[in-house]
């Protein structure tokens, strides 16, 4: 998927791009290594290269020549980068795992229901059949669902280069608008998420103009409750508003340790009312904030109901 003014281009640059009727990729050299080691070697050696993952964002940008790499390094033949491992306290996902594989995975459904719910709203069947988790993460569209989920889950991104391996907290992963904090020679190889314990409640809600569009605002919520019904731990991430998904620490603080009431939920949601938000021709900042507040309130209620249901349905969150 693409957006109007890609990759932070200036208005003048964009105006040239917008009026050039380009729909066929520019010339580039193409490599499709079959091993990660091969890919890392190429990434360290080739200047002005682009890594081709699922291609659902890079390919439109290539077709429109918004990007003009000298080399395309295709990661699609590297089998070792596509897996979903459930290891004790961590679910580890290879960066080239496709979105449809995640959507169809029992591990994801069981351990990361938040991600499962978000995936249903990622693009369309044709884009999920190609799109990968690593690609979505590195494209880092502010409104993309998976970065928002990983932000809520405190995901860890693993990046490798011939120089070694780095683990980057999701929180530190966005550097700028649509730009991850990785070096040109690095390749994102895996994503790790520590699932919350069974019995937690989660909800992913977004507002998009049409099903499958990038969200104008999205909200990912995780709630863990104690046996007496009090909220033990809460995580709340909002996507689509600013240059990258953001955690709403104030709301999380309000929720943790409190008994869930309608007033509390509303107050927590109101914490989204003054967060950073961008303005554009499609949605003013104030509107995006209002969306975030409304979606947060709904998502919190939903997560609480689900958490309650998972714990035997003893509590009435809206009491």
């Amino acid at each position: 998927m693409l957006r109007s003014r890609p990759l932070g281009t200036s208005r003048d640059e964009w105006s040239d791009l917008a009026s050039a009727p380009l729909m066929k990729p520019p010339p580039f050299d193409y490599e499709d290594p079959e091993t990660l080691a091969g890919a890392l070697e190429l990434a360290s050696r080739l200047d002005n290269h682009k890594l081709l993952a699922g291609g659902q964002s890079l390919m439109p940008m290539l077709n429109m020549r918004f990007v003009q790499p000298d080399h395309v390094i295709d990661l699609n033949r590297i089998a070792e980068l596509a897996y979903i491992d459930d290891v004790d306290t961590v679910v580890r996902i290879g960066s080239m795992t496709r979105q449809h594989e995640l959507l169809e995975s029992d591990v994801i459904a069981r351990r990361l229901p938040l991600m499962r719910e978000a995936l249903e709203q990622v693009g369309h069947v044709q884009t999920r059949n190609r799109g990968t988790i690593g690609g979505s993460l590195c494209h880092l569209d502010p409104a993309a669902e998976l970065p928002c989920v990983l932000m809520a889950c405190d995901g860890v991104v693993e990046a490798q280069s011939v120089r070694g391996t780095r683990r980057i907290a999701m929180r530190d992963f966005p550097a700028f608008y649509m730009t991850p904090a990785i070096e040109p020679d690095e390749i994102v190889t895996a994503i790790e998420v520590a699932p919350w314990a069974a019995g937690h409640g989660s909800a992913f809600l977004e507002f998009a103009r049409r099903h499958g569009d990038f969200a104008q605002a999205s909200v990912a919520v995780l709630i863990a409750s104690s046996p007496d019904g009090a909220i033990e731990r809460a995580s709340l991430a909002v996507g689509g508003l600013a240059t990258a998904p953001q955690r709403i620490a104030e709301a999380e603080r309000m929720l943790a340790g409190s008994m869930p009431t309608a007033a509390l939920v509303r107050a927590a949601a109101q914490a989204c009312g003054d967060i950073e938000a961008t303005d554009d021709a499609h949605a003013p900042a104030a509107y995006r904030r209002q969306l975030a507040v409304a979606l947060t309130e709904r998502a919190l209620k939903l997560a609480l109901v689900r958490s309650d249901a998972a714990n035997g349905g003893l509590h009435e969150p809206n009491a």
Partner: protein
Amino acid sequence: MSRTRRIEVEVNGRSEAREIDVRLTLADFLRRELGLTGTHLGCEHGVCGACTVLVDGRAVRGCLMLAVQAAGRSVRTIEGLGDAEAPDGLGVLQAAFREHHGLQCGFCTPGILMTLTELLAKCPDATESDVRLALSGNLCRCTGYQTIVSAALEAARRLNGKLAS
């Protein structure tokens, strides 16, 4: 230089080998190199779905894959969808589209048929909501989608009947 490459691809059950530019998209490869012009290009930026083809049985946007990426894989296009034994060579899905007027200009139709082919293979008892969700990534400007949905549901009913019998 690696700006061209020789690839072998299975297309509609036939093995095809060509020396191609690496920047050629899969859709352009099918249309330009193989003459399979039933796969249409409606936007070339991955939104309209007109270029949808099946790669290893899964619906993908043909404008968002490079042809080199299809090397060694199996591709199915609208030209490979028919049933040679049936009237006018139409398979169950195609016949349902004709009966229900599921197409007007027919430009988006190949992509829609390929999307539905995957859906009906995976989910033979698809409901109206399943069909609408599956087709949310295919644009049609003529029909308003209503007859497309009816045709898809009719095809599902018939395919189910076949499975049952």
